[in-house]
Each structure stands twice: as structure tokens, then as C-alpha cells.
């Protein structure tokens, strides 16, 4: 494809950095199109995991010995790198969590504790279960009201409906930056301004955007931004909650334990300052350090070029898939990236996914943890191909041939 030949980065060279991509499954070259679920890891991250446990392993923030100090330095250096990557004002605004879900639950529990019965929270109809259920649980606990912004059939949030839902009662708006099922890129910056106009805070679910675009939390002016390490080429089990410092300062702690305290007596405990106030217990030290390495890796790549490449992949895949009889692409937003979700008339996504798998192609099938969205489209699920910058047009061609073969078998 001509668009790809002009890329300022070399996909072949990038693929060399990802050992997991160089393997066969069921005797076929692996084609990994399940990046929306998790990303593969570059050598730099893999080496860092090995290095950490071989040379640096120690508990942090509490040891006087050499290894502990070294691990602490590395862990805090990772926090600073992430702060700079997100353009946050201070490293106090970077809270290590277990992942996106954990970050949302932290905000729901802690920020949610400051809300009163009758207050309102707004989400959209395209949210992942992890950006629905924590708010439902909070609403039940505190007597709050959850409002849902509808979407159009193309898979775009209806902005006029959003404006109608916003009021003085709105305390928080929590919206996905990019839909994991549809690939829609939401106009988050404008939505944040609108929320602030009524005095509401705004949480961005960045699980699907951090790996596809440059994020500047100060430019977005969001109050919270959450993401998972494993979707941005880092290890599983760790993620980040960015929060504005003054807001985090006002919020009560989430979990109690070691590291999050200043002084403990049986009568009264005082809490540690940010960011430790929200990091009870021994954290995922290796995870934090290696997430820092993942950012070191992606900062070595031109993200403008990544955006161009990934949009080209999604567009090419859509164009080819549209020629299949009975195939419907789910989600046709004007601003869309990296994801192509589709359904085939009379066929179950599970059957297609299983046959693609046996031809070496990893896709996701099912409801993608967005059951309300599937109800909206009145389908049981979709087949979803989700791309990363290491995917190629040739892989899409192979995927299309495998899909054709699968459909012939199912006829």
C-alpha cells in the first residue's frame, strides 16, 4: 500500500522487537489482531522484567539497604517518566493501580464518597462494563443517579443529548476515549469543557487510547485519566490513575494498609501524602518499573506515524471486509481508529473466531464486555480485529483469505 511506504518508521524493524509475534500456532504464522484485549511486549520490557528480578528485587520505600534503595529509585523514576509522558504537572498526580478497572473503582470509591444522594453521574452507551458497573454500585450505595448518553447507529455519542443531561446535579462524567468495540474516537476535549461548565469533574477511560495516540492531560484538562499497562506494551497487573493534585488531595484514601500511612496508633491514623495515600501495601514494583520501560520504548517511535499507520490498517480492513456478502461493520464513526468489528448474517461470531484461530489468526469474538452496546445493535456479539503499530497490510490480506475459507466451511 502506498500509504505505508511513506511511513517514517519501519514495520519490519518494529516487529523484530516483539518475540511473541515470531511464532507459529497450529503450524501457521501467528497473526495477532487482538490488541484491544492486550498488546504484545517489546524486548526492552521483557529484558527489564528479567533484570529486575535478577538484580534489583527488593521492597521499596522502607529499606535502608542498597537493593531497596535502588528499586525505590527505579520505581519512582518510572512514575516520573509516566508523569512526563502524560504531561502531568507533578508526579504526585500519578497513582499506580492494578489497571483501568482498579483506577475506576478507586475513583468511584474515594471521589464517590464525597458525593450526596441525588447527585448525578453521566456515562455513555458505548462504555466497557468496567466503566458502568463501578458507577452502578456507587449509585446503589449512595443513592446517586446514573445517566447514560445515547449514541447514533454509526457509533457516535449524541452531543446534544449529552448537553441536555448535564446540569448542576452532574458531579462526574466518565467516558471512554476510544471505544474498545467500535473504534470510535470520542471528542473528549470538548466534552470535558462542557462538563466543567456545569462544575462536574471528568474521568477519561484511556484503556484504548494511550497506545494509539499522544496523551496530554493538561491540554485535555481532564480531572482523571485511567489506563492499563498491559495494553500499552507493559506488563499485566499494573496501571495508572492520573488525577489533578488538588482533587486527589481532597479525596479520602481508597484502601488501608502499609505505605499509605503517616502514623498509626490504635486511637487514630494519619495518612501519607500523595501519591502514596492511594497506594496501600507492597505495589507491583516490577510492573511499575517495566511500565516505565514500555513508555521508554514507545517514546522512541514517532506517534504521528503510528496514528497514520493504524488508521490506514483499519481503513484498509474495512474496505476489504465490506466486499463480503452479508457482512456488516459495526461502528462507522467519522473519527475511528485501530478497530474493525463486524457481524455476518446467519453466522455466530464464535464459529468464525474458532476457525480463524485454527488458521493462526487471533481475533476477539463476543460482546467485548459491552453488553448494553450489543443490545443497542441487537446482535449477540461481533468479531473484532484490533490493530497495533506492529501489524501489517499483508497480515490483513492473510486474514481476509482465512475469513473467506471459514465462511465457505460454514455455508
Amino acid at each position: 500500500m502506498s500509504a505505508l511506504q511513506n511511513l517514517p518508521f519501519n514495520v519490519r524493524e518494529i516487529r523484530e522487537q516483539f518475540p511473541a509475534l515470531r511464532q507459529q500456532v497450529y503450524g501457521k504464522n501467528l497473526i495477532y489482531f487482538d490488541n484491544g484485549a492486550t498488546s504484545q511486549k517489546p524486548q526492552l520490557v521483557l529484558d527489564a522484567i528479567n533484570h529486575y528480578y535478577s538484580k534489583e528485587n527488593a521492597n521499596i520505600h522502607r529499606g535502608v539497604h542498597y537493593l531497596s534503595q535502588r528499586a525505590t529509585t527505579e520505581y519512582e523514576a518510572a512514575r516520573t517518566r509516566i508523569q512526563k509522558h502524560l504531561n502531568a504537572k507533578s508526579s504526585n498526580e500519578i497513582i499506580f493501580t492494578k489497571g483501568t478497572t482498579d483506577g475506576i473503582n478507586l475513583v468511584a470509591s474515594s471521589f464517590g464518597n464525597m458525593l450526596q444522594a441525588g447527585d448525578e453521574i453521566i456515562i455513555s452507551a458505548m462504555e466497557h462494563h468496567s466503566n458502568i458497573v463501578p458507577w452502578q454500585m456507587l449509585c446503589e450505595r449512595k443513592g446517586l443517579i446514573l445517566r447514560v448518553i445515547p449514541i447514533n447507529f454509526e457509533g457516535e455519542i449524541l452531543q446534544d443529548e449529552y448537553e441536555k443531561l448535564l446540569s448542576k446535579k452532574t458531579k462526574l462524567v466518565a467516558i471512554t476515549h476510544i471505544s474498545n468495540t467500535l473504534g470510535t474516537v470520542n471528542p473528549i476535549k470538548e466534552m470535558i469543557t462542557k462538563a466543567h461548565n456545569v462544575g462536574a469533574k471528568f474521568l477519561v477511560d484511556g484503556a484504548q487510547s494511550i497506545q494509539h495516540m499522544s496523551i496530554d492531560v493538561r491540554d485535555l484538562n481532564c480531572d482523571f485519566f485511567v489506563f492499563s499497562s498491559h495494553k500499552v506494551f507493559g506488563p499485566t497487573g499494573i496501571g495508572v490513575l492520573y488525577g489533578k493534585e488538588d482533587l486527589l488531595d481532597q479525596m479520602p484514601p481508597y484502601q488501608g494498609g502499609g505505605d499509605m500511612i503517616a502514623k498509626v496508633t490504635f486511637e487514630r491514623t494519619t495518612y501519607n501524602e500523595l501519591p502514596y495515600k492511594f497506594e496501600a501495601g507492597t505495589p507491583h514494583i516490577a510492573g511499575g518499573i517495566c511500565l516505565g520501560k514500555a513508555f521508554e520504548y514507545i517514546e522512541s517511535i514517532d506517534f504521528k506515524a503510528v496514528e497514520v499507520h493504524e488508521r490506514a490498517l483499519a481503513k484498509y480492513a474495512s474496505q476489504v471486509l465490506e466486499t463480503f456478502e452479508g457482512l456488516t461493520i459495526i461502528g462507522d464513526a467519522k473519527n475511528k481508529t485501530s478497530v474493525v468489528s463486524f457481524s455476518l448474517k446467519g453466522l455466530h461470531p464464535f464459529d468464525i473466531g474458532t476457525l480463524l484461530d485454527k488458521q493462526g489468526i487471533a481475533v476477539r469474538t463476543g460482546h467485548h464486555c459491552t453488553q448494553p452496546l450489543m443490545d443497542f445493535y441487537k446482535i449477540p456479539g461481533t468479531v473484532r480485529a484490533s490493530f497495533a503499530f506492529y501489524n501489517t497490510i499483508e497480515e490483513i490480506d492473510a486474514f481476509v483469505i482465512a475469513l473467506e475459507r471459514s465462511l465457505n466451511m460454514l455455508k
Partner: protein
Amino acid sequence: METSMDINKIQEEIISEFEMFDDWMEKYEYLIELGKDLPIIAEELKTEDRLIEGCQSRVWLNAVLIDGEMSFSADSDAIITKGIIGLLIRVMNHQKPEIIASNDLFFIKEIGLQEHLSPSRSNGLVGMVKRMKLEAIKSLNKK
């Protein structure tokens, strides 16, 4: 009355059938054909209590005890799932409940379909096998 075939013999038979296939796609072609041939459960039997909800596909299972032997019929919205159901029914139909309850269904692993019965797959089949055994145990208790 016709005596039922030994449950382990049927499994051996399936294993040798699958040995003829050269690759995975041939196995799945066969499963798809089996799925298409599976006698569909009567529409009125597709009730909520017969539904086994999976993350990927749904399965309906009807189990009855006739003359001391279990008789199963089932359906799924996914054709490959139906094919695997076809194999499970072939093995477990017309067997005595105590035999079903205690058999380890070794053929599944031998023909390489264990992934469909792993909890991670959660496609309704795991629940279906459990339900087949449970129904067998229930009818044992009724005796």
C-alpha cells in the same frame, strides 16, 4: 431391548475417526458437518431452565431418563458448539446414569478439543457437560 454400546468403546471409535484428519481445519469441517446434522431440540423445549448461558455461545439441553438410560437432546446458536454437542450426545446417549456420572470423557482431550471445555472458553459446553452429569446424578437419586 438393544444393549447400549460401551461408553469407552464409543470414545475409542471417535478417537480413531479423528486420527484420519490431517489438520485442524479438517477436524473442524467434520465438526461443522456434525453440527448441521444434529437433530435440533424441539422449540418448546428451549426454555430458560434448559438454557446454559456461556460467554461465547448458548446451549439448550434436555435430559430424560427412559428405561433406566439417559436420553439427551440439545442445541446451540453456534454451529461448532453444536458439532461438539453431537459428539457428547453420541457418547452419553442411552447410557446408564451411573456410567455417565463417573466417566471422565477422555476422548475430548485425545481429539484435541479440550480447549472448548476449559473454563477460559466459557462457551456453554463446560456448563453442558456439568449439566449432563448432574441430570444423570439426579435421576440416580430418584431411583
